[in-house]
């Protein structure tokens, strides 16, 4: 099985911030709106480099969203970013009507997303954005797995036409993709080969999936196919259906509510095209709380262990053609 090495830890927000600078260098019409937290979501990198193309809007995400629309309707490529809690929900009507309905070329950065924002607690731990944003017509939704991928994804959404949302995090996470690894919007990357079970993940859960795959092989000889599904919308139907056809058992993993996120998207694809047992790893219909990222990932069931257990469950369901399970408490909860 292909081995992945950690080349240090870095937050995905750095990839976003640096990607913006690179876009700024390539395109004169890339502009960035600040919503006060520029130093947190690292739009500050762009601001330092291109002060004439940076507008501070203040703590006013609704206004920033619609101003971005006006800029986009004037031929600019506006990015704005804040915490996901405020760039996906505070402004949700603006995203729906002004951005998505206009099919405006607005790029939204959702930073400090997920449980791993840590000590700030539940108010700031957005766990529902994927679900909301992928229901908006015209919207592209990307959740990069590490620093390098966040940078590539940022540049990619800048270079595509139409509205897009990119989700990234605050805390340092393992860097395991390479500068030259292939990245294409809408095309999931198969990271490990295997036909026993497929693990489809996004964001920081991709690394946990790689760990789970290593453990599955080491302990059980199970070869898991790990798929980095960085683009949630448009979803890569072919890669997902191939995985279902060839593996017959699927696990999804995301730092997001179980309802409507990556797992939901995968389930939609498979229910229609090739139904197989699916197990879902994610946050189970609850709010987060304060704590260090690792502590919270443990508490909320977002580690390789849950993925590992879910993989065994999915395989067992495939092999016994059984419908419901109650034997592994944490995982079975969602299937009840």
């Amino acid at each position, binding site marked *: 099985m292909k081995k992945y090495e950690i080349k240090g830890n870095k937050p995905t927000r750095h990839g976003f911030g640096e990607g913006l600078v690179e876009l700024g260098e390539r395109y004169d*019409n890339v*502009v960035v709106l600040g919503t006060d937290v520029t130093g947190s979501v690292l739009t500050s990198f762009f601001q330092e480099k291109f002060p*004439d*193309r940076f*507008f501070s*809007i*203040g703590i*006013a995400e*609704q*206004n920033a*969203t*619609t*101003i*971005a*629309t*006006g*800029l*986009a*309707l*004037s*031929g*600019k490529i*506006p990015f704005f970013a804040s915490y996901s809690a405020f760039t996906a929900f505070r402004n949700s*009507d*603006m995203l*729906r*009507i*002004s951005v998505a*309905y*206009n*099919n405006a070329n607005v790029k939204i950065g959702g930073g400090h997303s997920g449980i791993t924002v840590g000590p700030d607690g539940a108010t700031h731990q957005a766990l529902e954005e994927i679900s909301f944003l992928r229901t908006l017509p015209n919207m592209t939704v990307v959740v990069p797995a590490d620093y390098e991928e966040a940078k590539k994804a940022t540049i990619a959404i800048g270079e595509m036409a139409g509205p897009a949302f990119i989700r990234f995090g605050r805390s340092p996470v393992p860097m395991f993709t390479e500068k030259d690894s292939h990245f294409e919007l809408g095309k999931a990357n198969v990271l490990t080969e295997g036909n026993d079970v497929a693990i489809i993940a996004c964001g920081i859960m991709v690394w946990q999936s790689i760990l789970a795959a290593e453990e599955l092989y080491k302990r059980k000889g199970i070869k898991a196919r790990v798929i980095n599904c960085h683009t949630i919308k448009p979803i890569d139907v072919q890669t997902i259906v191939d995985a279902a056809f060839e593996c017959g058992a699927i696990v999804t993993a995301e730092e997001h509510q179980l309802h409507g996120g990556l797992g939901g998207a995968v389930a939609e694809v498979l229910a229609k095209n090739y139904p197989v047992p699916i197990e879902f790893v994610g946050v189970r219909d609850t709010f987060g709380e304060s704590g260090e990222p690792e502590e919270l990932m443990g508490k909320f069931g977002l580690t390789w262990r849950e993925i590992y257990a879910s993989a065994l469950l999915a395989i067992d369901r495939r092999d016994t053609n059984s419908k419901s399970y109650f034997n592994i408490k944490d995982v079975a909860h969602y299937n009840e």
Partner: protein
Amino acid sequence: MAINIKFSEKTFQNKRREPSECAEIALELRRDVIKSLYLAKSGHSGGSLGTADIFSVLYFGGVMRYRSEEPYWKERDRFVLSAGHLAPILYATLARAGYFEPSELSTLRKYNSRLQGHPGIDHHLPGLETSSGSLGQGISIALGMAMSDKYLDKSDRRVFCLTGDGELQEGICWEAAMCAGHYRLDNLCWIVDSNDCQIDGRVRDVMSIYPLADKFRAFNFEVVEIDAHNYEEILSAFDKFIDYHTHNNGKPFVIIANTFMGKGVSFMHDNYKWHGNPPNEEQTIKALEELGEIVELF
């Protein structure tokens, strides 16, 4: 009895005009509003009639710079209808400006029409700059356009935006006001259709927004308050805006345009119950008579 609704083929040039000519055009626009709403069987009569005089000056009095035969002309001024429910008057205006055939006004709110109930640019209506309909968002979109023109393109284009007065109850309007003042957007002309009417009643009763002029002044706006059924006042307000912008006075401009909802049709006059209703057949006959057209019956 049935009535035969016909739209004239008249279009109007955009040029400096005498008040009497503006009045003539406004009458045509009001007739279009009544006819298209009657045919649509739903929609917003009151505000569309109330703002007809503003539209006649803005598009046909030489205020806005546009080319209807070249809708995406780069140097054009832009108009954003933040109060998206006033779509009927905007559509009538665009048709009379030559963006599309006036007969298309008969398709308002109908299946497959480019004239959506609230403006939607996904239907590719020439002359329409943005979708709108969720109140308060249009003014903020206009801000983005004005920032783009002033700071990025360094162009002398202007952005006009019309909001309602009840609309100002939306918090985003005040985020936009703060931002317009902060960025000294002197290329932005914000027109508030101030008729003291909203769906539930008088604005002052539902949720008071007054004093209005002081609020805008506090946000560093240049404020002009006018009787927006008086063409001399409308023209001079726009003249002032253009003059200030030409001289870069560094302040966004707001026109508090005092209007009467339903202006021009006696039974709708200043009556908030006409915010969101179309006229029925009998009311259409009466309204059009008051607006100078005897409808054909058959």
